[in-house]
């Protein structure tokens, strides 16, 4: 199996406790949402977070009624806390995407336990971050003016502004993250749908699951889409954080105007993202008893990653300082001296403490093995990264070119309220997520366990038993409206199902087989016969439409429909028009991909004959099914054939 092809079985085994099975995974993780009563700790945390979120709500109301003057902003420091909050949150999002997408692409098995909550963190962090650029506007209710829409005034956005690029980047990132997160959750939602005892919950998860059944060809398209989305998400996050960096480096402000910023911001984003993954994961694994899935090795690996990107960030600090002195530019040098020794120097030195010095402890195995130490360091990194953003934003502004305009920035209580409130809102979303949605990707864990067993099995073939047992038989009559009949065979392993598919295909080449499994089984879809997977071409089409369409719109709007002299630039400034086009390339491709996957899989389809069958509900957990559609009169042949394949159960289905 390619996913563990390079890893030894011994290594893999430590990513998940060897006692775990598909059944126990489903049981444990499903129980978090379905069975565990609300603990008082969770409730207390929710109340605390909700109070903070309420503070944010009150703050937003006051802000909209009064103006951004409630913050400490002024001229020259026209950006401060809110923009630091924005960059901080969107950067935290990046860690999640990196784990779920980049590690997926390079097939690191240990991402399996982390990716769901990391991706959830991304979605919530990006959502929270998206509030700030809007609230930060002098007239927040006109934020949609950044969006190009046809209007009688022929008024268009100004495509050369990095804020415009960033607007596209945030929108694309948010939508793609939500799609990636949600689509990746479909099989687990289906699992919860099938496990939920209360009808209301079943309906809730049923609606969310879009009728996911775990059919082999669905899985194949799902995997294609996951790979492609992951392939898009990685460059997307890199572009998004480059855009965030360009919000500053497009300006000519000394301390902002730097080509270092995009990679620097990407590293910083990963850094704080990993720290947040740690800060969320360590208490979660403790309180939700997830130690079997999020092991100490996971934490140690995260720590190593954090150290690695942290060192890149530290290098960037050095490079930034070196470059300014190397340039001998009067304003750059003055700014750097300000950063080191000016009025806000304490912010810089705190940044050094948290982001440079404290992470050096991660070189030691002992530190990496201590969740308490990791938690402390990660919290420090989160604080340090916020302070770094404050430093990067405020220090260049408070003393820039014209000495007469220099002035200090002092935050008001509302500045702090919005920061605290945003943390509250994030925590509310996260706490609700923990109760409502599977925090660990169950189907991926099952797949990992399967791969683990498979290797073990191939090492000791003797344990497999070929003795045919007597399968239980049952009849089931579907309601008349569902004109569907056939034979359903239930197996206890992917191998058995794969074996059965092979046998049936040989014996009954004409049969329209469907195979259902609780995780994607390699090669199963192909063994069922040819199927169409046009997700990649659709996504290519979406990418072309998004990218070229946006570029065309920009050129039309700025060059032909209403040309304006903006900063002496030519009307068609195509290099400056590329960033929105890149973001739209990714966004439209992702939307097309999701649409193509759902359409090819005929989803959503909330009602399906198989859902009526009692045993089928384990198709989303730990059982494997083969569906052989046959007229009731011809049940005998398939029954006989399937009976030889040692199924656990055979069900005759008739309408």
């Amino acid at each position, binding site marked *: 199996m390619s996913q563990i092809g390079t890893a030894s079985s011994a290594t893999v085994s430590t990513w998940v406790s060897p006692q775990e099975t598909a059944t126990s995974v489903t049981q444990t993780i499903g129980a978090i949402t379905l069975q565990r009563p609300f603990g008082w700790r969770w409730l207390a945390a929710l109340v605390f977070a909700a109070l903070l979120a309420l503070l944010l709500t009150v703050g937003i109301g006051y802000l909209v009624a009064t*103006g951004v003057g409630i913050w400490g902003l002024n001229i020259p420091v026209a950006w401060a806390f809110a923009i630091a909050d924005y960059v901080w949150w969107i950067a935290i999002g990046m860690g999640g995407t990196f784990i779920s997408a980049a590690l997926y692409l390079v097939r690191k098995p240990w991402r399996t336990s982390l990716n769901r909550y990391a991706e959830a963190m991304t979605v919530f962090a990006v959502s929270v971050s998206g509030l700030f650029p809007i609230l930060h*506007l002098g007239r927040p209710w006109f934020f949609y003016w950044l969006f190009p829409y046809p209007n009688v005034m022929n008024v268009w956005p*100004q495509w050369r*502004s990095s804020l415009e690029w960033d607007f596209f980047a945030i929108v694309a990132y948010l939508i793609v993250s939500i799609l990636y997160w949600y689509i990746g959750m479909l099989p687990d939602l289906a699992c919860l749908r099938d496990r939920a005892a209360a009808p209301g919950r079943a309906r809730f998860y049923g609606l969310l699951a879009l009728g996911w059944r775990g059919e082999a060809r669905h899985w194949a398209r799902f995997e294609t889409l996951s790979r492609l989305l992951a392939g898009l998400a990685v460059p997307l996050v890199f572009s998004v954080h480059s855009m965030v960096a360009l919000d500053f480096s497009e300006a*000519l402000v000394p301390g902002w105007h730097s080509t270092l910023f995009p990679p620097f911001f990407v590293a910083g984003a990963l850094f704080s993202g990993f720290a947040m993954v740690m800060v969320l994961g360590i208490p979660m694994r403790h309180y939700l008893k997830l130690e079997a899935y999020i092991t100490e090795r996971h934490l140690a690996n995260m720590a190593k990653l954090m150290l690695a990107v942290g060192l890149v960030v530290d290098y960037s600090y050095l490079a930034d300082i070196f470059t300014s002195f190397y340039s001998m530019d009067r304003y750059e040098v003055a700014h750097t001296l300000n950063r080191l020794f000016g009025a806000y120097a304490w912010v810089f030195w705190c940044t050094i403490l948290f982001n440079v010095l404290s992470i050096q402890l991660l070189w030691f195995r002992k530190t990496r093995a201590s969740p308490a130490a990791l938690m402390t360091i990660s919290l420090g990194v989160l604080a340090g990264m916020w302070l770094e953003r404050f430093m990067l934003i405020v220090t260049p502004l408070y003393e820039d070119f014209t000495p*007469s305009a220099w002035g200090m920035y002092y935050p008001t209580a509302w500045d702090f309220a919005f920061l605290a409130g945003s943390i509250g809102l994030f925590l509310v979303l996260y706490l609700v997520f923990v109760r409502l949605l599977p925090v660990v990707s169950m189907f991926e864990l099952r797949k990992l366990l399967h791969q683990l067993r498979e290797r073990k099995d191939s090492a000791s073939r003797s344990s497999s038993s070929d003795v045919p047992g007597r399968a239980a038989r049952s009849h089931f009559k579907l309601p008349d409206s569902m004109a569907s009949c056939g034979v359903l065979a239930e197996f206890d392993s992917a191998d058995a199902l794969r074996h059965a598919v092979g046998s049936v295909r040989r014996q009954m080449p004409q049969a329209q087989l469907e195979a259902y499994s609780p995780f994607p089984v390699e090669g199963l879809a192909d063994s069922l016969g040819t199927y169409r997977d046009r997700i990649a071409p659709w996504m290519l089409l979406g990418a072309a439409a998004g990218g070229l369409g946006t570029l065309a719109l920009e050129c039309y709007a700025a060059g032909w429909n209403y040309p304006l*002299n903006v900063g002496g630039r*030519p009307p068609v400034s195509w290099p400056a028009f590329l960033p929105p086009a890149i973001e739209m390339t990714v966004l439209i491709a992702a939307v097309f991909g999701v649409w193509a996957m759902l359409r090819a899989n005929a989803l959503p389809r909330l009602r399906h004959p198989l859902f009526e069958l009692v045993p089928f509900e384990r198709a989303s957990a730990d059982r494997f099914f083969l569906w052989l559609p046959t007229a009731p009169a011809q049940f005998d042949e398939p029954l006989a054939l399937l009976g030889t394949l040692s199924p656990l159960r055979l069900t005759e289905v008739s309408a």
Partner: protein
Amino acid sequence: MPSLTPASSVFNRREFLQSLGGSVAMAAVAGCSHPPQTQIVPYRRAPIGQVDGLPRFFATTLKRSGYAHGVLVENHMGRPTKVEGNPGHPASLGATDIFAQASVLQLWDADRSQTVLQSGDTASWEVFENAWLSRARQFDSTGGAGLRILTGTITSPTLAAQLAGLLRKYPQARWCVHEPVNTDNVRAGTELAFAMRLSPRLRLDRAKRVLALDADFLCDPAAGVRYAHDFAMARSPELQAGSPVRLYAVESTPTLTGAMADHRLALESRRVAGIARALAKQLGVNAPSENTLEPGLARWVKAVAADLQGHRGESLIVVGAAQPPQLHALGFALNVALGNLNRTVDFSELVESRPPDDYALADLAAEMHGGGLDTLLVLDANPAYDAPVDLMFVEALRRVPHVVHAGLYVDETAEHAQWHLPLAHAFEAWSDARAFDGTVSLAQPLIAPLYQGRSTHELLALLAGDDVLDGRALVRRQWQAALPDEASWTAALEGGLIADSSLPAHTVELHDNGLSIQTQPGPGEGSLEIVLAPDPTIGDGQWANSGWLQELPKPLTQLTWGNAALVSPALAASEALSNGDVVELTLAGRTVRAPVWVMPGQAHRTVTLHLGYGRRRAGHNADARGVDAYALRNLHALWGASGLAIRKTTERFELASTQHHFKMEGRDPVRTATFAGYERDPQQIRAGDVYPQKPPSLYPPVQPGEYAWGMSIDLNACIGCKACTIACQAENNIPVVGADQVRRGREMHWIRVDRYYEGPPENPRTYSQPVPCMMCEHAPCELVCPVDATVHDSEGLNLQVYNRCVGTRFCSNNCPYKVRRFNFLKYVDTDADTLKAQRNPEVTVRQRGVMEKCTYCIQRIATAHIEADKADRRIRDGEVITACQAVCPTQAIRFGDTQDPGSQVSEAKALARHYVLLEELNTRPRTGYLARLRNLNPELQDT
């Protein structure tokens, strides 16, 4: 003029609109609700006939410290909205000071007195008239015994005649003049020197060497605008090829005049006389031999004396109003000795009208305390606030049974008066006044009184039982002889003055050279001295309720909304004081608490406290703001005294300053050279430029439009008076944000005047630099706006589209000059109805959440476009005059089409001393600067 409004204490919208409808510009329109009873005449250059939507300009006169300043008032459909200088008026020459600009806001000030008050309760003119009639009957029989009249400085011939008439009618009555910021010492100096009361007049345009002895002549209340103009002309390297004026200043506290000086001495106020005496000795004016000057000062005096001596007849010594009469006499004697008489200075007969018997405020206060007085008329004065504290004037007022106060505001004096009568604002009344040179200036009303106000003339006529009660008739009667026919009267009104009415130079003869002046160390020598000076922006306190003036940063401290005790850096170091520390200042047993401001260039042992703050009853902008310096002002030490004790307290007060950094940090926003150096090597101004030629660009050049507007600001002319800031505020509806918002760094001025220091803090070189929008051709602000809210037009203007602005503020971050201003909150006052009437209808009122900035007065450019298009011609050079340009006394700002090589602005930009700010950024500003030049005396070290 009879009252237009019924007796009512509340001014409602209906009455307001009625007043508007009855405004003077509509006089000729039949059917208006309340037309004024009289006819006024538009300024001669204005178009004949009112055109709706087009402003009309009327010439009238504003008084400052009693002296006339000729102005043109812009009227929009009968609403006075903006004041410009009257080009034909000798005290204006087309420019104004900050107070004239603020007068339009004062007109619309809702805190103005609106109704007659009797013991604080609403009354009416009829009730007062009846009450007065009974008193007048008594005065008729007693010859006015027990009647006293207190006024400010009066130069109005009509009012003087009325007062004379009243005193003739009531020979027992007496008249007293009280002006808190006065020129009594100058007058006494002329009396000493020439045995005559005279008014000196400076001819700075003829001077080549000027020595200012504690004299801030550029801010002179009567003639500062004119003097600044003359000085700037005398200083222009282009106009005065090779021989520009050289200014020496000796002063205790930095002033704008001192900041313009080529050589400045920071010296305690009490030691200035010593310099004058040493100078007298050097100039051979029969001075005694004793020399108390330390060697450095002696060298300085020697060099200055030699320089003055070398420019006989074109030198000038000016002594400040705060210095004693003997020093003025000495100054006059030195000017005579230098042959300057009637060349750079001459004397006219006294412009002010004075009480014939020299009845002084101290005499009045003594009589009041004595309890023998019956009636005191306080006419447009506020002694309860600004009389010397040792007169205990409030106590004195309590002993007078009938105090009648007439004023614009229900102020501290009104509080202690039985009757308060609302006066008409200068824009609501007929009047006249003399300018500094005696020119008779006529004032005509521009709007019918908004409230129940009457003019001083009408009031005096009423009190004197005159048979003529109408303001216009009173003034007309005064000038019946000089302007016998209607044509001449109309012509005078059109021009705002009576032609050739300036007073002729008087022949004088020196009687006393003032050398008797005491320069030996006095008892207080070595102790601290306090200097009490009028506040740079709110004067003696009568302007305290003006939001514009309160928020106008004081020229040298950049403080707003309050005053502070200015201390020298050395004193601050020895007393461990820093900005905002509250100190107790004790003088002669009286103590005030004031926050400290460390003032570079302040004389070591001098503490300066500006008058005008600490108002108790002046309006919502003024009350309880700042420190009342009058609390330390004694009758015999009006301008300060030695023997001050200073004690630091633990308290702190956050002062609201608009500028926090005063060093140039090697970035040379103000470029300087010496005249000699500049003549030798004109290229040195731009020697450090990265792009001496046209800077390179990646982008194709933008097709030029019909015009290419540009501006040039001459830092060599700019004296830093900030009239441009306030003119811009008036023109462009710029809101006032208040002290708290200023502390947060959110002031809204579109053109700020930066101040930089260079050199040692004890006596630094001081530079002023007006900074409007630079209108960069490669505007960094435009590039970063995501919604096209700031873009360029074809004529090179960097436009701000308020409607489109969403308020990201990236443009401000990316503006290297930080000229953009943001409405962080709702700063525009949309609640006060009267303020709405003040606003310029041509300029959008900005909402909260949008960015704004200088537009080069685009509304004026648009008006010129329309006029040119109508006549099918190009806009002429000088046809568009921005508000800042128009108001500038020194004509430092030039504006026009930079494509036209013959335009004034192109000529300025072609000079070798032209440069742009931060040229290395390649923003290509359209606003440029002309370098400041200093005319150094080679004999003196450059300090």
